[in-house]
């Protein structure tokens, strides 16, 4: 089961929907891991004939199923960092009439949304569907370092080593949630870590 019911939260936390086929001249679909299932859910031969899929499998084996959809173009990347050059290139050569679909983890969708926004695409017109891991991409508000795939709260910053509390405050610009030092007043007094939504 790759779908997760997010509990209610503050307005800052992103809300994800369900992909639907929209009218458009070209379609760009970017997904990682179980996000492939969302693409499979929306795919039709007509849609795929105008679709470019950029997919990062992580440790899953959905890539062949996506290829079988016969998209106009298919790219499989080993990581987001390795794929971002291609995403930028596609967006830089896109025109109005493009539709953008993002599916998978929050980190992937947030970063790809950021690229689309910087290319001039309005974030309100980007479709998203969360699938797979509920891990977050976190920014340490103290050292500004990014820690990827954070599943527990609190966690230790991968850059400066501070113990960080996982907040629901999200930055579209950074495509990351805020992590704030949890033991600043009383160093060493850190509650036991648990899953983010537990």
């Amino acid at each position, binding site marked *: 089961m790759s779908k997760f019911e997010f509990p209610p939260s503050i307005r800052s936390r992103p809300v994800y929907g369900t992909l639907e086929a929209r009218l458009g001249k070209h379609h760009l679909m970017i997904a990682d891991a179980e996000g492939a299932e969302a693409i499979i859910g929306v795919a039709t031969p007509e849609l795929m004939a105008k679709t470019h899929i950029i997919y990062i499998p992580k440790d899953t084996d959905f890539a062949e199923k996506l290829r079988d959809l016969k998209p106009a173009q298919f790219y499989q990347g080993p990581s987001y960092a390795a794929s971002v050059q291609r995403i930028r290139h596609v967006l830089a050569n896109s025109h109005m009439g493009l539709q953008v679909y993002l599916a998978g983890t929050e980190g992937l969708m947030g970063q790809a949304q950021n690229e689309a926004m910087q290319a*001039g695409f*309005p974030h309100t017109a980007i479709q998203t569907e969360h699938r797979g891991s509920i891990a977050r991409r976190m920014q340490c508000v103290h050292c500004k370092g990014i820690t990827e795939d954070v599943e527990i709260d609190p966690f230790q910053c991968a850059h400066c080593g501070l113990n960080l509390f996982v907040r629901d405050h999200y930055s579209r610009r950074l495509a990351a949630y805020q992590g704030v030092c949890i033991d600043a007043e009383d160093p060493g007094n850190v509650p036991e870590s648990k899953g983010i939504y537990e």
Partner: protein
Amino acid sequence: MSAAPQRVKAGAEKIDVAVSAVVPLNDLVTRFEFKRRDGAPFPPFSGGAHTVVEMNDNGRTRLNPYSLMSDPGDLSTYAISVRRDDEGRGGSLFMHGNVKIGDEMIITYPVNLFSLDLRARKHLFFAGGIGITPFMSMIAQLERSNGNWELHYACRSESLGSYVDVLGYKYPGKVHIYYDDQSQAIDLENLLDGQPLGTHAYVCGPKGMINWIHATATAAGWPELHVHSEEFLAPEPGAPFVVRLCKSDMTITVREDESLLEAIERAGVDAPFLCRGGSCGQCETDVVAADGNFIHRDHWLDDDEHASGKKIMPCVSRFIGKSLELDR
């Protein structure tokens, strides 16, 4: 919610002006230029803003919105261009027939309901007829910041093409003119195809043109937020009806030739307004009770609100029926 500050009196703040120039452009359109009577500079405005011009037509007050079409970088003058509408309610006829250089008039502070989205990578303008006016100020604003824009302007004929000469002379590569009487038409589908990502389209013109551009852009996959339009409605005449104003504790009759808002104002009740054309939302009024049918004409309330019978925009909408009570 509107960003406009809460004010004691309805409408935007007013400016005392004198008419400094009256320039006929062609058979239908005349430009009116205003200077402030106190000699101070006008308040700054952005391209696409409008002002409401107060006309004293033989004791009857007319308030008509017109787009400011002068350069936002020049605050010594405000200019509007008015198309004479022989079948209209008389505001444009009054401007054409009665307003002379030196006349003292009152206009409101500018209000912008049709502003540029400055995040756009490119601004694509579509004007139909007198719909050119907001683009005149938008173009002047963008030229100062080296903005990327392109204008597609449809006019009835060469003789009725207001500002075609000046636009074509100053921006030959950016201005495209289409004359109806020469069977020239905007090749919209091809034009929208291939525009750079981040392009915003703006349309001002007849209702049919606005709907055509919205529909064609949507079919081509353009996000709704990237297609902007402005259409001021003039109130339409209709059968007289009686309205009970609960807060003011009075009952008034809306005459055939006036809007509900005008009737409320005539009764001495201070009702909020800004655009008087069904667009801005300021005059939204709660319905306390109604027995009859609403004639909703505004662009502000959505279909559900129209159907609910709980709200009315008195600037352009009317009522037919036994009784209407408003929370005003």
